Each structure stands twice: as structure tokens, then as C-alpha cells.
């Protein structure tokens, strides 16, 4: 597995037609930023209102209190006294509608037709070392788009509480039934704050409807920006600078659209955002975290009197009713806020890559000058380097890792030659078939000392195993890593 340079369609100024280009660093970063769009199409950590999914979010109900008028009285002889007229009363509505959902999501493992992932420029060995196209492997895709996409989302402030495109897919409270760059998860309010509408009660209207309130609806919305809001959108061309892929069905090279890109990348992101220990587990709370959206506030009038009101209709109809009075104030005890939370803890996991039929690719083809050495180095911090005598420095980051976080314990690694030439003057090592503690960086290399120009290209594959004990009785994972070199013949 490795970081690859994706391809896209580009037409720089002066070019007659669009051509296929490798993405530069800026374009790649823009694709990483677009991960937020992809996740937002189908977030795996989300809120719903009044459904049967997930669990009721702890900390409810949302409480709404408000005064209503008393029942009216009518007499034929006189007005009922204030004491005889029903008092105003306080009503309470409790809302338990907010549900937290973490969808079931597993890390995708497939590679349909071996062409599921984008293509990159690939150099083959042999006499005609041309530049060709090759589809990324699943682990290439993770190294190139998933991991950096998650890191970009973190860097751009996905959990910072605002509701911009960098927070696409997160949820928030709003009092708008049509929030901009967002979509309501339900037309049903999360809760309603009703406050007596004092001005609505009039003498001439007795009998007045008892409940007459001014309502503020609180909704749950999801941040939902259009794809055109991201840098990948080329507004001049009306297209998106997204990676190319080989469509195995039509045998055409095509460029991803926002929809197809979201369908490809989204399932990986969904796994990380809903999995404890992934480093990106996301949830919502009513008690702590980073606030998202409006604060729910319960307001009610504070009565300044009984609100006793009379209405003479005729000599047989003397009416009275008591109305809510006063001005609205906040009931602090009922205030609620929605928070987004993230658990950055990572479950330490050893994970090698490559199979016997599809080993992890080496980066380049060093050429022999009579002595060539290539290989891999497994570092104590979990990273993996390539080794190439032609590069300076000889070791350089492959973008791959053997563990997903800084190791908290001692692991042990064992190397063996899986395949490769057995010619004399070709050696593999320095240490084969021996468990070595990864408290120091460990190297597996092949050195070919045959004279240059006496052989063609060569390939070797190493079998790599990592165990949790020095005897290798508990092997955690096995991988296969290859290397190439050119003899010059």
C-alpha cells in the first residue's frame, strides 16, 4: 500500500483540448477537503426526530411551559366575581423526540473487478519502461484518500461547532424551517417553545380560546452544502477535478462525479465516524462537547395580575374570563444545548498489507551499476520506508504503516524471502527467519552484485510477519512486500 498520485482531466490555458494530468499537491489537497462533502451525503453519526431508529438522546425531555387562559363564565344576572372565574393555569409540554443514530458500518474490503479505485501512472519493468495506467489497490486508496481525507477534515475543523461546509454532515439546532446550506432531518420540530400571546386575549372575544401562544419551533438540521461549494469544482468548465478511474464495464477511462466519489469514499468515512477506537468516533450530547446551533430556550410570561376580564353581551349574558398577563422571561432551568463530541482515542492495531498474488508495490526501479540494493525498513514509530541505493537519502517514507498509532508495546517482526532470483551474488537480508524486536528499525533488503548489463529486470517479494511475542506464537498479521531493480541488459 502506498500514496499514489491520482490523475484528472485538465485543460490549462493555451491547450486546445483537455488532457490527462497527474494532480499536483493543491489539487490533491482539494480532493482531501472534498471528503467532507462525501461524508455529508450519508453520515453514519446522526440525529433523527420522532423515529424508531437509534436511541433516545440522554438529557431529554425538552420542557416547554406557558400560561393559558382559564375557562370562561357566563351568568344571566351579573358578572361572576374574580374568585368565581377560573384562574389562568400553567401548561407543560415535554418533548422526547431526539434520537441518536450510529449506523452499522464496516470498513469496505472489496475491489470489484480489481478496478474499483482510481488509476495512477505506473511504470513497468522490462525493456520498454513506459508510463502506463494502473488501478489503485484498496490499501493504496486508503493511504491516498481515506487517511489524508480524515486528517484534512480534522485540520479544517470538522468538530469546531460552526455550520460551514467544513462541517458538512454534522447536525445542529435551528429555528429556521428552511436553513441555508442545510436540510432539516424532519419537518417535525425537535421541540416547541410556546409563550402566551397576551395581546391576543380581548374582552370582546370572550370566550377566548384558552391556549393562544406565540410559538418558536426548534428543528434539527444537517449541514448540507452543494458540491459546487468546494475547490474541486471548476466553475469555468462546470466540471469537477476529481480522480480518473477505469470503468471495467464500459472499458472507458472516466472521471468521478461528486456522486460516484461520495459512493466510493463515503463508506470508508462512515466506518471511522461511527467506530469507537478509530480516532474519529463522533457523537452528540445534550450535556457537554462543542455546541451546535441554537440554544433551546423556554420562555413564559410572568403574570402581573389575575387577568380578570368582563364582557357584557346582553341582559342574560354576563361573561368573565381570566387571561395571561405580563412579559416573557426565560426559564433557565429548561435551557438546552446540542453538542457534538469526538473521541480521538485509537485502538492500536497491527496491519500489514499485500498478498502473495498482489504484494505491496515498491516505488521505483533502481538501476544496477554493478551493485544495487533495494528493500524496506519497518520503523519503531509504525511507519514503513522504502530503501533504494539511487535515492538520497536512501530511506524514504512509503506512506504505509505497520501499526495505526505509536506502538504502546514491543512487537516482533520476521522476514523471509517469498520469491526472487537465486542467482549467485544476490543476497537477501540482513536477517531472515528470525524474530526481531521492533524496538529498533528493522530492514529487509536484496543486494545484487552481478555486473551491470548482465541481466534484465528482477523482482523479489518478501514475506513479513509481526507478532506480539518474541517466539512468534501470536502472529498478529502477515504481509507481502516487493521490490524491483534493473540489471541494464
Amino acid at each position, binding site marked *: 500500500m502506498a500514496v499514489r498520485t491520482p490523475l484528472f482531466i485538465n485543460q490549462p490555458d493555451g491547450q486546445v483540448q483537455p488532457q490527462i494530468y497527474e494532480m499536483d499537491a493543491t489539487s490533491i489537497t482539494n480532493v482531501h477537503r472534498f471528503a467532507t462533502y462525501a461524508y455529508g451525503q450519508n453520515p453514519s453519526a446522526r440525529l433523527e426526530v420522532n423515529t424508531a431508529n437509534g436511541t433516545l438522546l440522554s438529557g431529554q425531555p425538552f420542557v416547554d411551559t406557558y400560561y393559558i387562559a382559564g375557562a370562561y363564565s357566563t351568568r344571566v344576572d351579573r358578572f361572576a366575581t374574580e374568585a368565581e372565574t377560573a384562574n389562568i393555569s400553567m401548561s407543560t409540554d415535554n418533548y422526547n423526540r431526539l434520537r441518536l443514530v450510529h449506523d452499522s458500518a464496516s470498513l469496505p474490503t472489496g475491489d470489484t*473487478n480489481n478496478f474499483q479505485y482510481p488509476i495512477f501512472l505506473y511504470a*513497468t519493468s522490462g525493456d*520498454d519502461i513506459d508510463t*502506463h495506467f*494502473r*488501478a489503485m*489497490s484498496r490499501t*493504496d486508496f486508503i493511504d491516498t484518500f481515506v487517511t489524508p481525507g480524515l486528517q484534512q477534515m480534522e485540520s479544517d475543523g470538522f468538530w469546531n461547532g460552526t455550520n460551514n461546509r467544513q462541517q458538512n454532515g454534522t447536525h445542529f439546532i435551528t429555528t429556521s424551517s428552511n436553513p441555508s446550506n442545510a436540510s432539516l432531518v424532519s419537518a417535525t420540530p425537535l421541540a416547541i417553545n410556546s409563550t402566551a400571546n397576551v395581546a391576543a386575549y380581548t374582552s370582546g372575544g370572550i370566550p377566548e380560546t384558552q391556549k393562544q401562544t406565540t410559538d418558536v419551533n426548534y428543528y434539527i438540521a444537517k449541514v448540507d452544502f452543494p458540491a459546487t461549494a468546494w475547490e474541486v469544482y471548476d466553475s469555468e468548465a462546470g466540471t469537477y477535478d476529481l480522480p480518473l478511474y477505469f470503468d471495467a464495464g464500459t472499458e472507458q477511462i472516466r472521471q468521478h462525479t461528486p456522486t460516484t466519489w461520495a459512493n466510493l469514499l463515503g463508506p470508508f468515512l462512515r466506518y471511522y465516524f461511527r467506530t469507537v477506537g478509530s480516532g474519529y468516533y463522533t457523537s452528540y450530547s445534550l450535556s457537554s462537547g462543542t455546541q451546535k446551533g441554537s440554544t433551546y430556550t423556554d420562555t413564559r410570561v410572568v403574570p402581573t395580575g389575575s387577568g380578570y376580564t368582563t364582557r357584557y353581551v346582553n341582559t342574560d349574558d354576563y361573561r368573565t374570563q381570566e387571561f395571561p398577563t405580563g412579559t416573557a422571561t426565560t426559564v433557565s432551568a429548561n435551557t438546552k444545548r446540542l453538542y457534538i463530541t469526538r473521541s480521538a482515542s485509537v485502538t492500536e492495531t497491527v496491519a500489514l498489507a499485500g498478498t502473495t*498474488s*498482489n504484494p505491496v508495490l515498491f516505488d521505483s526501479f533502481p538501476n544496477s551499476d554493478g551493485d544495487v540494493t533495494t528493500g524496506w525498513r519497518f520503523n519503531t514509530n509504525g511507519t514503513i520506508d522504502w530503501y533504494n541505493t539511487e535515492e538520497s537519502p536512501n530511506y524514504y517514507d512509503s506512506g504505509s504503516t505497520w501499526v495505526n498509532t505509536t506502538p504502546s508495546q514491543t512487537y516482533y517482526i520476521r522476514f523471509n524471502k517469498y520469491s526472487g532470483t537465486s542467482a549467485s551474488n544476490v543476497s537477501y537480508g540482513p536477517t531472515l527467519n528470525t524474530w526481531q524486536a521492533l524496538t529498533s528499525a528493522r530492514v529487509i533488503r536484496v543486494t545484487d552484485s552481478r555486473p551491470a548489463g548482465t541481466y534484465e529486470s528482477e523482482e523479489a517479494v518478501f514475506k513479513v510477519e509481526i507478532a506480539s511475542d518474541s517466539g512468534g506464537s501470536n502472529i498478529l498479521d502477515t504481509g507481502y512486500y516487493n521490490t524491483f531493480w534493473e540489471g541494464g541488459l
Partner: protein
Amino acid sequence: MAVKVSGTEVITNARALEAITDTDVTTSATINNAIKDQNNILRIFNSAGTEVRTLFCAANTPVT
């Protein structure tokens, strides 16, 4: 001297082909092989490294 077929010039005095409306199997193969001989190849590999398409293209500097 130009070459005509049924009154239509098909090879000009400048030795250019003109008005060729079709090719037979032999000629198609000849043209195809001439392109292949340029050895300007784009290969498409799947993620397992298996070559699935081979595209032979014209070259900027033709191979003679």
C-alpha cells in the same frame, strides 16, 4: 503522374493518398501493424497488476 480510379484521383502527384473510402482486410492489418511498430504503448493494469488493455498509439517521431 497521379493515379485515378474511375476518374477520381486516389494518389496525387505529391504522392498523397486521397478519397480512399475503405480498406480491405490486408490493408487494415498493414495499417494496424504500422501503428504497432511505433511501439508507443499505453497499458492499463488492474489493481492486481494484470494488464487488461493494450493501446498502440501513433508516435511524435515515427519509427522507420
